[in-house]
């Protein structure tokens, strides 16, 4: 293990995956990842085409072309940069190109804010990209080869986002095991797609589909996501066999089995929740954690099974669907339980917007509020950390 910055650990893991083409536009707090990568390329440590571009829209567009030509491709962005990519994200997915991108999660403007929340990637939910969320630096670094293996699988062939909380994970120094080249080569086979853009054998990607065929393209993307459900679990286990590290596949849990109160969350807040659970368990509370690692594809069956003994479910969201007063995880969890016999209250809390810190005291406050449901006081969904004096 070595103590390095989260961004460095991720850049190093990208290097181990040997992408052929990288294209990115620097934006806080993603900058250190692409600085490290461009340094590797400049120093001749990576044999890779690093394309400097004038915007994130160009970065993703360049990778779409490169990926269609058979290259393993990488980008990283955040916030406004990801929003600028929005249109082309659909193209990457619709053309079934397994681009892998680290999204260093950050809030969206206005008001301008460079700090962490997850509104950026959540807002790209329906673009047809796989989305995994990492809990710590090690998981963020290890996610890169996992995502290449998942995305490039011929049953899947979908682009994928590795989501890591901006600053909290990208700028933290903590002990990590940097990926070894030999193990990564053993784990991750080269990208060898069946169909590529080739002047010798011309074909079109993403060409015209009229009403007689368009629906079936969408259906096949959905089927590919279904295949990804299995593949994500499978690859997590394969990774464990090669490297001896495991973070869950679609989901993971902590002291869940006997828990009456289950907290569900994604990303770096997981660690703080685990510490809170340990503290409250000592006081006799029956609390556990259900970590959502894969937000797309959404692990409906796994969640239903995991929640079967829960009495109260709490969802934490670092995002809001304005006009619904709910975060995306809350909405999705409710929806996935509706057509079952499981009638457990799901209480949504939105927090950590624009980098607002999430101390243990905020999690404790949320749990106490959710427990009021036992007394018949039901909160549908609310902001957990509002500063009332500013309203």
């Amino acid at each position, binding site marked *: *293990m*070595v*103590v390095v*910055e989260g961004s460095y650990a991720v850049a190093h893991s990208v290097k181990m995956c040997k992408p052929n083409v990288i294209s990115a536009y620097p934006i806080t*707090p993603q900058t250190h990842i692409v600085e490290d990568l461009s340094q590797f390329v400049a120093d001749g440590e990576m044999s890779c085409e690093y394309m400097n571009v004038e915007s994130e829209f160009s970065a993703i567009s360049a990778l779409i072309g490169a990926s269609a030509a058979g290259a393993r491709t990488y980008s990283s962005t955040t916030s406004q940069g990801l929003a600028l990519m929005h249109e082309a994200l659909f193209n990457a997915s619709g053309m079934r190109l397994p681009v892998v991108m680290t999204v260093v999660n950050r809030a969206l403007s206005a008001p301008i804010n*460079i*700090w962490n929340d997850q509104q950026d990637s959540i807002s790209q939910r329906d673009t047809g990209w796989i989305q995994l969320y990492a809990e*710590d630096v090690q998981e963020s670094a290890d996610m890169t080869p996992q995502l290449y293996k998942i995305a490039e699988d011929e049953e899947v062939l979908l682009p994928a986002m590795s989501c890591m909380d901006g*600053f*909290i994970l990208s*700028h*933290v*120094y*903590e*002990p990590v095991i940097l990926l070894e080249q030999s193990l990564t080569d053993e784990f991750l086979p080269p990208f060898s797609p069946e169909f590529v853009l080739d002047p010798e054998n011309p074909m079109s990607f993403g060409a015209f589909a009229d009403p007689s065929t368009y629906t079936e393209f969408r259906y096949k993307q959905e089927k590919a996501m279904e295949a990804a459900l299995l593949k994500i679990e499978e690859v997590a286990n394969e990774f464990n066999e090669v490297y001896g590290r495991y973070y869950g596949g679609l989901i993971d849990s902590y002291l869940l089995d006997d828990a009456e109160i289950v907290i569900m969350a994604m990303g*770096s*807040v*997981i*660690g*703080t929740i*685990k*510490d809170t659970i340990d503290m409250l368990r000592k006081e006799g509370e029956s609390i556990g954690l259900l970590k959502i690692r894969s937000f797309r594809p959404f692990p409906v069956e796994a969640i239903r099974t995991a929640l079967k003994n829960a009495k109260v479910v709490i969802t934490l969201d670092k995002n809001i669907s304005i006009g619904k007063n709910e975060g995306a995880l809350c909405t999705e969890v409710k929806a996935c339980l509706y057509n079952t016999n499981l009638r457990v209250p799901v209480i949504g809390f939105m927090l950590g917007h624009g*980098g607002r*810190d*999430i*101390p*243990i005291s905020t999690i404790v406050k949320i749990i106490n509020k959710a427990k009021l449901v036992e007394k018949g006081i039901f909160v549908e969904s609310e902001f957990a950390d509002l500063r009332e004096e500013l309203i």
Partner: protein
Amino acid sequence: MIEIRIHGRGGQGSVTAAELLAVAAFEDGKYSQAFPAFGVERRGAPVTAFVRLDDKPIRLRSQIYEPDYVIVQDATLVDVVDVARGAKPEGVILINTEKNAGNFKLETKAKVKTLDATKLAMDFVGKPIVNTTLIGAFAGVSGLINPESIKSAVMERFPGKVGENNAKAIQAAYDLMEAER
């Protein structure tokens, strides 16, 4: 778990100090975590950085509200920032100043200690960059980290003469504070 908060001004290397502490502590066999308070970086503006040390992996990701140790790189910050905020009563606030601790009327039960780190840095490094000197002093104040680990972390980050000179400042600061402990 030991929690440390570092106050400085943009350009003084507070974030680097936190990183180097984390590297040194890990070299010493502890788990460590270092992160900045994520301000919009501007030279001269108040900056905060955090460090956690523990015998087991660190999962907590919030900022530090009740530090065991506070390191203040620039004494003028005392008038601008509540450097003593939340400091544990049994904790230590270490201020870089030529003044005695009695000159600082902080609202805290934590012990206030002072060190003229700027003078040490000028003597050994030739520049008023005090971050490495202060983490040497922290090792002396706390007894938590071997000064050799701090010196090797600093010399790895700043190879050659610069690192060696910093190592001398670290040792001097360590010796001064260790004698007081």
